[in-house]
């Protein structure tokens, strides 16, 4: 079975919000749009968004690190928002695992938003129905588009390629490889929701050097001179 998902690399994300704006643009002008705003040019503007980039500061100055954290629906493999829906408007697609809302069936009771621990669903203030990330379902399933463009708008927009898209059930896919080899993890694993989206952690590349490796007695790079008087065996006398 296919489970389409995003893998978001926190090591690469620079927090530019390009994924946020491209998501909004595609979703508001697509066939399921508009994605409405309220008071967009006034005081306290607000609106419906499927994707946000949040920023967190880890640690205390001077040992701090800034982490930009893109947040969108995780398309859980055990989506808690789906069974609670009284009308059946919330569903998980059998063929590719994308969690969707049928806007024509939703009664806007907001119960599914209570049942999502991640806060990924938003009620559209104007259309009065629950909305959420569709993983650009109208785009990824559109066979009239060239293969390379059958990806969510956020993935195509990301200037640093921090967002990967693919089938996490296929062990050889780009996303599965990234999860496996780069320590991909899920959010709030304690709830058993099995999010399909994964995040790749911040990674540091460090070389490991021990003190005696820096002061080798017979360091070939050392300044020319007489060898030191025998002070017992060095590491190099016993290892080759």
């Amino acid at each position, binding site marked *: 079975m296919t489970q389409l998902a995003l893998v978001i690399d926190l090591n690469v994300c620079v927090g530019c*919000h390009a994924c946020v704006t491209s998501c909004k643009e595609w979703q508001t002008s697509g066939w399921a749009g508009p994605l409405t705003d309220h*008071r967009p040019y006034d005081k*306290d*503007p*607000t*609106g*419906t*968004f499927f994707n*946000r*980039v*949040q*920023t*967190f*500061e*880890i*640690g*205390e100055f001077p040992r701090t690190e*800034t*982490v930009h*954290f893109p*947040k969108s629906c995780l398309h859980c493999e055990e989506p*808690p928002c789906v*069974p*609670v*829906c*009284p*009308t*059946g*408007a919330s569903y998980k697609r059998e063929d590719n695992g994308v969690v969707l809302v049928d806007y024509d*069936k*939703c*009664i*806007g*009771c*907001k*119960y599914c*938003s*209570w*049942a*999502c*621990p*991640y*806060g990924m*669903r*938003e*009620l559209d*203030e104007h*259309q*009065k*129905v629950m909305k959420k990330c569709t993983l650009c379902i109208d785009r990824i399933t559109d066979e009239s588009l060239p293969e390379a463009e059958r990806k969510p708008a956020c993935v195509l927009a990301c200037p640093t390629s921090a967002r990967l898209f693919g089938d996490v059930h296929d062990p050889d896919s780009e996303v599965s490889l990234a999860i496996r080899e780069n320590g991909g*993890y*899920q*959010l*709030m*694993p*304690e*709830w058993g929701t099995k999010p399909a989206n994964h*995040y790749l*952690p*911040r990674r540091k590349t460090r070389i490991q050097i021990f003190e005696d490796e820096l002061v080798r007695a017979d360091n070939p790079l050392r300044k020319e001179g007489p060898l030191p008087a025998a002070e017992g065996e060095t590491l190099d006398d016993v290892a080759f």
Partner: protein
Amino acid sequence: MHPAFSVIFLTTLIGVGQGLFLALVTGQVYSLANLLQPQDSVRFYAVGSALSLAFLVAGLVASIFHLGRPERAWRAASQWRTSWLSREVIVLPVFMFLVFLYGVIHWLGWTQPLFRIKGVIPVDATLLTGVLGALAAFALFGCTAMIYASIQFIEEWHSPFTLVNFTLFGIASGFMLAAAFSAWSGVDLVGFFGAWAVVFTLAAGVSRLLSLRRNARLVHKSTLETAIGIRHNRIEQKSQGFMGGSFNTREFFHGASHTTVALVRLFFLVMVFVVPLLLLAASYWLASPGLPVAAFAAQYLGLVAERWYFFAEAKHPQNLYYQSMA
């Protein structure tokens, strides 16, 4: 969670309606066993059922304001296999119909026994609808409470206390209304319903205090560490991704200060558990029809505050992502 008045009124009003109906049926069963004198079918049971139905309809009307698209509400009956909300949508009209039927049969006076159990206990149509209605009333308490108790992420609600509290609060306020209704219509059952109202109010008080203690000691499973998956004791949010608020900041935060929340808790503890009992005790001595009515009114007001606090005390894990606007 943000306390929505539509849901506060829905749950408290139908709780009163269910409790009143259970009180009426209890009265009928008692008089069947010759523990109480039988009451007039039309003046007591039919009018009482109408009163219960009025509360249920008022609750249903309140619930409409909770929906974004109420014209599609009929669809909500379809997912009864998985959704407690859907089950409530089915059980509520069924219960309302049984209350209506119970009232109409009493109104028409169809109280001739259909058959007798062991030749002693006369069973008539009102008793049958009464027992079915009582079962539906309990089923409705279950559905309403499970809507909240079944969400494992909202740990303040995810406990058997939610089920017990909803049921006991509904029954207590219903018996309180039955006492008020008896006093108002001059029926000599104020003592009977009043005594049961006191018993259920005290039981609800014990259960609510235990649940308050449980929630005060609750350690939440999710932390900011598990929410964003970074292992550090000190994580500070610098941006939510917007400045003007969103559904996430409106739906899941009550926005009231700690003082306000604590005052509401004190208010409901006094109004639900103390004031009605004092008023009922006073009515016992003074025999005034106004006091039980005042007792019910005070308890209902307290229950509205209790339901507000029920929402305000619940902390949704999504709030971890919305801790500071900056």
